[in-house]
């Protein structure tokens, strides 16, 4: 645990700012999937490095919270370490690497493998909150399209993918429809994680700092990945087992283990993987590379 810095308010942000963010969060929860503009502040880490998530977390934190921070599923990646230290320093909250123990989990690019439970909050860091952005670059237009529920262009884009490639060529940040109304960007999680968005007992909050947007999925809200009847949505993962814990259902990271380019696969969720190992599961070992 780092030494606390008492020059700043609890969890860094001043109370006025927290109130402004909480209002945006409440509005977001009331209109699932709708992007609520909020007056994002400069944070002491760069835009694009999780400032939206950090602000949402800061606005939600209370002293008894237990915080977990993951990036790419892992607790020990550099940016996750940096953000966890930030809250240790400014909020003096307890931190954990255990998914079940955490009351608030801030994540970049993954949903934990372990199912979440009621009362937990999952905060996503979002780079580009607008699912229509790469179809229509203008914010003034995309807001109109959402207001009118005009999502035809999105379906055309997905159709064109199928026409060109035979599949929908989006593997992460795969668009979803929330409660039959708003099309939403689930942040750049692999589409493998998409099914976990729906009917989730935890509250899911999404913060985009640079783009000044917050959106939310209340617990048990219905989230459907966009697809076509004849091209249904499918999950995608490497057809391998984790070499460390042997899991064959988790999302895997591919690592290159020698100069010949031999590859091995390990769980991207470090907590999931180490818990399995602690429970006696074992994989083939790092030596077992796939060539």
């Amino acid at each position, binding site marked *: 645990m780092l030494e606390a810095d008492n020059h700043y308010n609890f969890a860094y942000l001043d109370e006025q700012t927290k109130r402004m963010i909480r209002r945006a969060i409440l509005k977001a929860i009331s209109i699932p999937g709708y992007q609520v503009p*909020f007056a994002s502040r400069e944070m002491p880490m760069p835009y694009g*490095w999780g400032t939206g998530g950090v602000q949402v977390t800061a606005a939600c934190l209370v002293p008894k919270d237990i915080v977990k921070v993951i990036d790419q599923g892992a607790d020990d990646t550099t940016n996750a370490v940096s953000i966890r230290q930030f809250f240790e320093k400014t909020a003096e909250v307890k931190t954990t690497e255990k998914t079940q123990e955490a009351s608030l989990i801030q994540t*970049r690019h993954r949903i934990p493998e372990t199912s979440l439970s009621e009362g937990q909050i999952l905060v996503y860091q979002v780079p580009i909150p607008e699912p229509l952005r790469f179809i229509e670059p203008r914010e*003034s237009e995309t807001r109109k399209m959402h207001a009118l529920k005009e999502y035809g262009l999105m379906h055309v884009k997905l159709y064109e993918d199928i026409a060109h490639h035979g599949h929908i060529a989006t593997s*992460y*940040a795969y668009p979803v429809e929330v409660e039959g109304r708003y099309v939403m960007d689930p942040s750049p999680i692999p589409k493998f994680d998409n099914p976990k968005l729906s009917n989730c007992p935890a509250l899911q909050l999404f913060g985009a700092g640079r783009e000044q947007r917050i959106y939310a999925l209340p617990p048990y809200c219905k989230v459907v990945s966009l697809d076509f009847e004849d091209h249904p949505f499918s999950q995608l993962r490497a057809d391998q087992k984790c070499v460390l814990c042997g899991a064959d259902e988790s999302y895997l990271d*591919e690592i290159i283990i020698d100069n010949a380019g031999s590859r091995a696969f390990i769980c*991207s969720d470090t907590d999931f993987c180490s818990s399995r190992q602690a429970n006696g599961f074992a994989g083939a070992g790092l030596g077992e590379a796939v060539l």
Partner: protein
Amino acid sequence: MYVAVKGGEKAIANAHKWLAQERRGDPALKSISVNQIIQQMRLAVSRVMAEGSLYDPELAALAIKQASGDLIEAIFLIRAYRTTLNRFGKSLPIETEQMICKRRISATFKDIPGGQILGPTYDYTHRLLDFKLLAEDDEVETETETVDAPSVDMPHILELLNNEGLIQKEKTGCDNLGDITREPMELPADRALRLQVLARADEGFILGMGYSTQRGYGRNHAFVGELRNGIVVVEMEIAELGFAIEIGEIEVTECESINQFQGSKTEPAQFTRGYGLVLGQQERKCIAMSLVDRALRWRELGEEFTGAPAQDEEFVLYHCDNIQATGFVEHIKLPHYVDFQSELELLRKLRATAILNQEAAE
């Protein structure tokens, strides 16, 4: 041999230590003082204050020192600090007409009431390296021959044209001013908001945008009607007192450009205006800002949108902030294993299907 990239905690701590050493440089040399930076790097201090949108030379100099002279990093430090400060209220509009000018020039009139004051400028220096500055002692003549501190009236030049009706009148008053640091930007933005954004926008971006208008992308034929730099007082109305008191002085640079005519069958032709105002002495940014401001006014002035980037409000306002830009551009060096992995799997799948189809065709 492959070394795992995970395991960041120790690596971060060590990287910070190394950075601190690099920042300090050779310990045999004296550390540069914040006062030296304020005094001898004053244009860098200006830029950090302007784009950090916080008028405090000492903190700006500290940020420059801490950032090893990386100005965008310094601006970032200032922004992150300023956002934690309380907002007490708003000042009265500063009266730039009352500016105590260090420098004041007009490119449109040879002789102007109050006079042209060249002031401290690099404009007419020859850009020859001054090798004398390599020497440790850097003495300059302390006596400068100046006319008495100008206490004469220095009216805004564009107002003189206004008397004849030759130039478009600006709206006055500032009710319900927005604040881009406290509310999310929503588009279309009014001019006051646009100017707020431009005033703290990246100098390089605004320079490029302004330059593009001169090269035909949203051309608006600008003259520098007046460029002035100096000290203005800041006043604020204190509710308990019921009147305004002076709370400090700031240095600003102001540019008013005179641009091509507007007019119609019913309205006689008039010059139009662009405006730039920046904290500190920052003429390059200020002139460019007036060009971009003018280009963004196409709708209000009944011009055509030609598709030029400088006319495009969303394009300019969403991309001109260097703290937003640098964060997002540089974030791609963060781990993206997960998204990349899903792309790898997708690509393998697409290729497998295509190869199967190919084989079937053969």
